[in-house]
């Protein structure tokens, strides 16, 4: 407990506390403050152009939003779950049956159009046009750094491992670019 209290001054210096308040605003759809990016904005290689929005669907939706593919950014229609008494849905409704728990959450997320309900984050090279220097693959971190494994081609026998830190853009030798981004409220490196 004492060690946590000691962290407060460090967090205040890094404007994390400001971002914690901003994170709450982010989950309701308002973009958070950009104070965390001020010191890295000048460096073109490592700057984050705009703060990454983390909504309930995680980073897959962010990748879709950044990609130039028009089909990927379209939102699905309104989801109407049937309340029919005989269990047979009307035309245009969706029926879930008596699914419960994590399985239900996954089905609902998929019906809403999310491709990655559990934030597995397996992004293939070329998916959403990501992996280039302009649109790198976003690697979210909570600790400030994260281990990334690049499978350079589909049938490669070896995985290239690298440590990526928040606000850092790094490339594998095969030309795949990764960008580390802190989840709002997390530590930076």
């Amino acid at each position: 407990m004492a060690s946590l209290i000691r962290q407060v001054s460090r967090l205040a210096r890094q404007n994390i506390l400001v971002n914690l308040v901003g994170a709450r605003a982010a989950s309701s759809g308002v973009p958070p403050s950009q104070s965390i990016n001020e010191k890295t904005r000048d460096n073109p290689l490592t700057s984050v152009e705009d703060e990454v929005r983390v909504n309930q669907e995680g980073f897959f939706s962010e990748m879709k939003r950044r990609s130039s593919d028009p089909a990927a950014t379209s939102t699905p229609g309104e989801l109407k779950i049937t309340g029919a008494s005989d269990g047979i849905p009307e035309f245009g409704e969706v029926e879930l049956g008596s699914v419960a728990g994590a399985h239900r959450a996954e089905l609902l997320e998929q019906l809403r159009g999310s491709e990655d309900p559990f934030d597995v984050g397996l992004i293939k090279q070329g998916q959403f046009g990501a992996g280039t220097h302009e649109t790198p693959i976003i690697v979210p971190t909570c600790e400030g750094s994260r281990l990334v494994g690049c499978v350079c081609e589909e049938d490669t026998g070896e995985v290239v491992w690298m440590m990526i830190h928040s606000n850092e853009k790094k490339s594998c030798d095969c030309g795949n670019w990764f960008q580390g981004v802190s989840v709002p409220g997390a530590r930076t490196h």
Partner: protein
Amino acid sequence: MFRTGYHLVDISPWPFSGAMSVLGITSSLVGYFHRAPLMWVYVFGSISLFLLVFTMVRWWSDVVVESTYLGCHTSLVVRNLRVGMVLFILSEVFFFVSFFWAFFHVSIGEISMRTIGQWPPLGVKAIYPWKVPALNTAILLGSGMSVTWAHKAVSVHNKCPAGVLNPNVSSGSISPEEYNNLVEKGSCYQKQAIFSMVLTVALGAFFMCIQYEEYYMASFTIADSAFGSTFFIMTGFHGMHVFVGTVFLFICTLRLIYRHFSFNHHYFGLDAAIWYWHFVDVVWIGLFFAVYVWGY
């Protein structure tokens, strides 16, 4: 509440009780071999056997509860279960590979060619393959077809409430009139699935009855040279696997009747039972051609 897609199971006594029951069974068997008092062997052995069956029933019903009623089996968990079932069936394949190896070693191995000299050995009257064993082959192949029918019926019914395809909200691929038409016609898949599953279980039970009759009427025993040993070990273990597969399919039939496999509920249990049944079928085909046909 953390949102992981994997299933962290609750604490459960069944692994421990399963281990204890198996310990009891092997201990009583060893005691029987070493002339322990029969009363101890029977009492201890039957208690352990009962505990084993009880553990299996309770453990697997816990799995059914976790999947159907608690919704713990997400797509990530089901993917892992598939891999697990494939590896288990692979281990069973190698179990049978060892017996086939032994069979070919004693039938055409160098030492056997010199000592036994011919196959079947002199004095052993092998079973004529193109009567009853061919019937068994037809039964198992037919049950493989009926179980495939059941699988198709369940997967159609699984994607359709009351057997009707639910159109994607944003695609708008069919009109409301067509949709209502499909609703009226679509409820037959559940009945088809139940019928074909019952047929499969019945064929499996019929296979076991015929094998029992064959065992009773055979002119040789397990003690009759290498022929009898390999024959009864291979067909005996295959029969045990047919029994397990039939019980598995029977439980799946009950779950189907209770609508565990209805809309959006395509649980992996039925897939696992069908894979196991196909494995049993393939082993019988191997047995038929290697032991019955070639060995005649």
